C-alpha cells in the first residue's frame, strides 16, 4: 500500500506531528486537520482572520477546530505549525512574525507542511508531475471537478527551496488551482515534499468546504 502522510516539518513548533486525518475512523478528537487563524490561534483572541488579510497563525486542530498535536494536547504550540504568510508581494513572505523574507531563501523546514510519500514494496521510485490542488468540496463532501477553483477564499502557496514566487490557487485572481513540485529524478524509497500555504478570506464565516488534494506520479 502506498502511503501519503501530512506532517509538521522539523522547523515547526509541532515538529514531526502527523496529521491523522480521522485515522482511525471516528477519531474526531485527534490531530486531524490544518487550520488557519488570526494571531490568537484557535483558542486565543483574535482567532479569526480579518477579511482580505492573511492568517497570522497556523495550527493542527481536531475536528472542532481546537489546537491539537503531540501530547499534552491543548498546550499552545503543541499543534502549532510554521506560519508562512503572504507578505504583500509575490516574492515575499512573513514567517512566524518576521516579514519581508524573500521566498528564494526560505528553507524546506520552514514550510507549512511536509508531505511524505512511501511507495509500496521495497523498490525505489522516481516521481513526476507532483502537485497540490486546492479543490472545491460539494455539499455532500465530494469533489465534482478537481480542476475547479475555490471562490470566496484566497489561497497562496509555494514549494520552499524551489520556488521564488507565490502561486495563487484559490479566490479572486486565481487562474488555476495547482502548485507544482520539482520532480525527484533519483529513485528512492521515501520522497519528502514541502509546501508553504497562506490563506485570506474574501468574506466572513468559517470555511471547511475546500481541501488540499496531493497528487503524485511515480515509477
Amino acid at each position, binding site marked *: *500500500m*502506498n502511503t*501519503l502522510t*501530512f506532517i509538521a516539518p522539523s522547523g515547526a513548533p509541532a515538529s514531526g506531528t502527523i*496529521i491523522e*486525518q*480521522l*485515522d482511525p475512523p471516528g477519531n*474526531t478528537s485527534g490531530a*486531524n*486537520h*490544518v*487550520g488557519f487563524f488570526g494571531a490568537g490561534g484557535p483558542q486565543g483572541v483574535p482567532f479569526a482572520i480579518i477579511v482580505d488579510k492573511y492568517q497570522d497563525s497556523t495550527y493542527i*486542530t481536531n*475536528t472542532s*477546530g481546537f489546537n491539537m498535536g503531540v501530547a499534552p494536547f491543548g498546550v499552545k504550540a503543541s499543534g502549532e505549525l510554521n506560519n508562512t504568510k503572504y507578505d504583500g508581494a509575490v516574492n515575499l513572505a512573513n514567517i512566524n512574525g518576521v516579514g519581508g523574507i524573500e521566498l528564494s531563501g526560505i528553507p524546506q523546514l520552514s514550510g507549512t*507542511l511536509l508531505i511524505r*510519500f512511501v*511507495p509500496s*514494496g*521495497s*523498490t*525505489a*521510485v*522516481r516521481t*513526476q*508531475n507532483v502537485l497540490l490542488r486546492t*479543490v472545491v*468540496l460539494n455539499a*455532500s*463532501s*465530494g*469533489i465534482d471537478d478537481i480542476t475547479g477553483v475555490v471562490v470566496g477564499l484566497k489561497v497562496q502557496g509555494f514549494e520552499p527551496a524551489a520556488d521564488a514566487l507565490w502561486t495563487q490557487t484559490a479566490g479572486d485572481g486565481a487562474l488555476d488551482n*495547482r502548485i*507544482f*513540485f*520539482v*520532480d525527484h*529524478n533519483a*529513485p528512492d524509497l521515501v520522497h519528502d515534499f514541502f509546501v508553504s500555504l497562506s490563506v485570506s478570506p474574501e468574506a466572513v464565516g468559517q470555511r*471547511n*468546504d*475546500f*481541501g*488540499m*488534494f*496531493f*497528487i*503524485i*506520479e*511515480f*515509477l
Partner: protein
Amino acid sequence: MNLKQQAEGAPYHLVTSMEECSLGRFWVVQLDADFEVYQSHDDPTLDESNSWMRLKQFCDDNNCRPINMAFASKDLNPGTQINLDPLADGYFYTRRARKLLTGDPRLSGYQDNAQGVGQLHRNTLKIIWEFDHGGMEFETRHLDEHPKSQPVSLIRK
C-alpha cells in the same frame, strides 16, 4: 544478435512474450522493430528497476519507437483491455497516488491509487487512469502549460 535479443538481454531485461509476463494486468507495447514488450514486476536488483523506464532506454539506445500500446489482462477479456491509438506521437505509463487533506470530516484522509496509460498527439497527452479499486478516469494534459509538467515516463516517437 537481433534487436529482440538485445531487448531481452542486459541491461534492458525486457519481457517479449505474454508467456513470460507474470502480471495479471499489464501494459504491452508494439515496437516498430516488429516485436512486442510486456510489463514486468519492478526488479530492485537491476540498475533500473522499472520495466517502462528500461523500455524507454532501449528505444533511445537503439533508435526504435513504440507504434501501439494496450493495457491488457491475462484473462484476455476484451471488455477490460484498454487499446490506445496506433501511431501516436508518444506513449505514456505511470502509477499514481492521491490523498486529500481537508477540514470536512466526511472526506478527510481520502486516498486512491491508480495506473495510467496514455498517448501523445502533438503536445496533448490523453491519459486513461485505472483505479486499483476499479473504475476509470480520463485526463487531457497539455504539456506546454507548465514547465514542471513534462513527464519523464513519456516515450516520444
